[in-house]
């Protein structure tokens, strides 16, 4: 199940080993972008929507092709084109203070709207404003609607301010799905809604979700066979994106799980861009999204020091499956509502603190690291309190670094590296103190 090849872009032509899951994902993503960019030619219609609150199974019921602007912004971040797009958006009047995902997207449109495969993104036929856990999404699609002037469908997800999902919330969402979202999707697509078709997709989702959870929870082992932050960015791609509910996703997660179990059986740590990680020295829980413009450089700061992330909140931003949620094909609309309501950033701050503290205990982590993102108030507002509270509850040290999603101006490598090194020293001191006390 392993393919070996040489990537020309890597200095000194380093040999990279790609596992079957990586090959599968690459093929899936390439296929998706080809499908998307050829939509006008093949007569397919396109729905733009978001990762948190992504209703992929429902979208597929209407034969719509899913386009996720955040994922496009991430791609632009990784390819280092987002910086110019952000500047372009600021040039045409968008504030320097607001979300750079939005500005990368707006700037990309202004600069030709090219997909990663070099072809133009088609204009969306519908903006499915199914957002959860972030007010910016609402404004983002109002901005896109102004541009595309297409049908925009709002699905409002109430916030879990009191730490629970109430009957009122679920009924509100189901009613929106039944009476607003589905009829409008039928109208745009010309496809009649079939609830049994939705059930079938949801059954497939569950299979992939089960395997994803097994992969993420493998990090409870020592050494952890995965990196649950940097590595998990790849792992969550298919299920948070355009593939939840597909056979492709089932196959991808089956491969991935087998590979991770194999690494586990051989006592191996995570795979990094530089190959196998060395000895695991620090086990961290990370809160907040990563920086994408210097993603590899950022990751390297961890694995060079033997630091592995064993759990992260960002890998729950498109669905919190490890706490037990699975899509329920027997209650298709209710389960979509529950999914949206339970997404990480739709959880109250006390819930988020509970979750992070629990991760530190269950994954036997050395501490919490917060990567605070300038663009993302949904994540960032309150993180300093979260840090202190998690430290207090777990007795484990926490640290705080700052960067941005896709704006290269807000990634200061030297500053972050310094802080990380200090943090690792702090962990060492804490360990030495604990040993001395024992």
């Amino acid at each position, binding site marked *: 199940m392993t393919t070996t090849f040489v990537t020309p872009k890597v200095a000194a032509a380093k040999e990279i080993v790609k596992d079957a899951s990586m090959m599968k994902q690459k093929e899936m993503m390439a296929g998706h972008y080809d499908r998307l960019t050829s939509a006008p030619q093949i007569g397919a219609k396109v729905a733009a929507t978001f990762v948190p609150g992504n209703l992929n199974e429902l979208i597929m019921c209407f034969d719509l092709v899913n386009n996720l602007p955040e994922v496009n912004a991430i791609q632009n971040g990784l390819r280092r084109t987002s910086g110019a797009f952000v500047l372009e958006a600021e040039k*045409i*009047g*968008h*504030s320097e*203070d*607001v*979300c750079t995902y*939005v500005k990368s997207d707006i700037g990309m449109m202004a600069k030709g709207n090219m997909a990663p495969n070099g072809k133009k993104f088609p204009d969306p036929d519908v903006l499915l*404003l199914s957002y959860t856990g*972030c*007010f*910016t999404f*609402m*404004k*983002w699609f*109002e*901005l896109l*609607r*102004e541009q595309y*002037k297409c049908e*925009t469908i*709002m699905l*409002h997800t*109430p*916030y879990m*301010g*009191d730490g629970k999902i109430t009957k*009122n*919330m679920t*009924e*509100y969402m189901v*009613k*929106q799905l039944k*009476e*607003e979202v589905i009829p409008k999707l039928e109208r745009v697509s010309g496809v009649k809604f079939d609830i049994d078709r939705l059930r079938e997709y949801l059954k497939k989702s569950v299979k992939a979700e089960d395997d994803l959870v097994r992969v993420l929870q493998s990090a409870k082992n020592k050494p952890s066979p995965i990196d649950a932050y940097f590595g998990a960015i790849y792992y969550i791609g298919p299920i948070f994106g355009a593939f939840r509910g597909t056979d492709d996703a089932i196959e991808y997660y089956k491969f991935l799980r087998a590979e991770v179990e194999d690494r586990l059986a051989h006592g191996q740590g995570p795979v990094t861009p530089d190959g196998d990680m060395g000895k695991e020295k620090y086990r961290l829980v990370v809160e907040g999204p990563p920086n994408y413009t210097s993603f590899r450089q950022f990751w390297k700061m961890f694995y060079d020091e033997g630091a592995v992330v064993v759990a992260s909140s960002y890998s729950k931003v498109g669905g919190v499956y490890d706490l037990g949620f699975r899509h329920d094909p027997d209650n298709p609309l209710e389960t979509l509502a529950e999914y949206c309501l339970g997404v990480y950033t739709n959880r*109250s*701050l*006390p*819930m*988020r*603190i509970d979750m992070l503290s629990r991760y530190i205990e269950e994954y036997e982590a050395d501490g919490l690291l917060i990567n*605070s993102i*300038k663009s993302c*108030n*949904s994540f*960032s*507002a*309150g*993180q*300093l*309190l979260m840090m202190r*509270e998690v430290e207090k509850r777990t007795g484990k040290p926490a640290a705080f670094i*700052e960067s941005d999603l896709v704006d290269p101006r807000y990634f200061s490598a030297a500053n972050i590296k310094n802080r990380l090194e200090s943090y690792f020293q702090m962990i060492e001191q804490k360990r030495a103190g604990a040993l001395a006390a024992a």
Partner: protein
Amino acid sequence: MDASLKKSTTVEIVARANALFEDLSFAAAREWKAAKPGRKVIGYMPIYIPRELIHAADMLALGVLGGGDQLEVIHGDAYYQSYICRIPRSTVELGVSGRLDFVDGMLFPSICDVIRNLSGMWKMMFPHVYVRYFDVPQNYRDDIGGNYYVNELAELRHDLGELRGKPITDDELRFSIALYNENRRLVRELYAFRAERPWQAPAAEAYLVLRAGMVLPVEEHSAMLRDYLAAARAEERPRRDNCRVVVTGAFCEQPPLNLIKSLELAGCYVVDDDLLLVTRWLTADTPIEGDPLRNLASAFLHQSEATAAKYEPDLKEKGQHLVRAVRRSGAEGVIFAAPSFCDPALLDRPMLQHVLKDAGIPYIAFKYAENSGQMQPIREQAGTFSDSIKLWSGT
């Protein structure tokens, strides 16, 4: 002459309102609470809370709008990164410094991610205070968003009843709705009067009189509004050669009072704005007859202000509230004044500017923080804007 019959002047009324505004210990609200055993105070943040429910529970609705430019933020900055607006940090400062220690409950409306997350922080920091994130529907159908909102209102009504130790009755609620209807009518009257004769009701004065409604019981605030309107109508004041502007974007974190004064000193009469929206969120009287919660819900869905925190389902309608505000108040331009790092206002701004451009309405934009101290750049920008309107508006 009997002193009780003496009519107050604008100077006296504004002095009282200013004293309330400057008092960061909230003495008036503390006195109200202390005046009768068992009284309770419920704080709320911008932009909208159905204050009728609080009043119906015999409680005082206290607007908590940050610390302004007079509060030294010592602890609050330790809770927020530099790229987050100032209102949450000064609100935390008010809390941890004990200035809100008499407040029995805090409501955090659905406005943005920062205020939303502050609700969770408040729960953790002040565990003995009743805290609720108050969600509102972004779906405006009576049978969908309306039903959801009625149930949310019912939950709040139930919780406030529990806090009081006695459920809130429909009649109590109807009585409160009537009082707030009257208050909103007076606020609208003040806005209409200012739009007609802005030199008679300067923006800073109107703001202070409105702001008094954040700390006073509604009955007392309505009396103040009536008195101010009567006094402002009776006094003749010099008219300046100012242009007329609508100020928008300032619906949450409040600009310093000096900023509002500076705009008028720089040559811009403020004839409409979105400051303190809670005072006129509902744009028409809420019916008294029938189910009071359903009436409040219906008013929210169909007769409430448009603002960045609300989804606008109709593309054609986006930003038209601003064009209407310009036409209604006879304004000649719009000033976008938004707090730094305010996601809703700043994300909305380009769309609103496009609408204004299409409508041929000139605008300028700047940012502020509630503690901005340097007004000279704003004065220069507003002055240039005023000059350009006066010189070029006919061309």
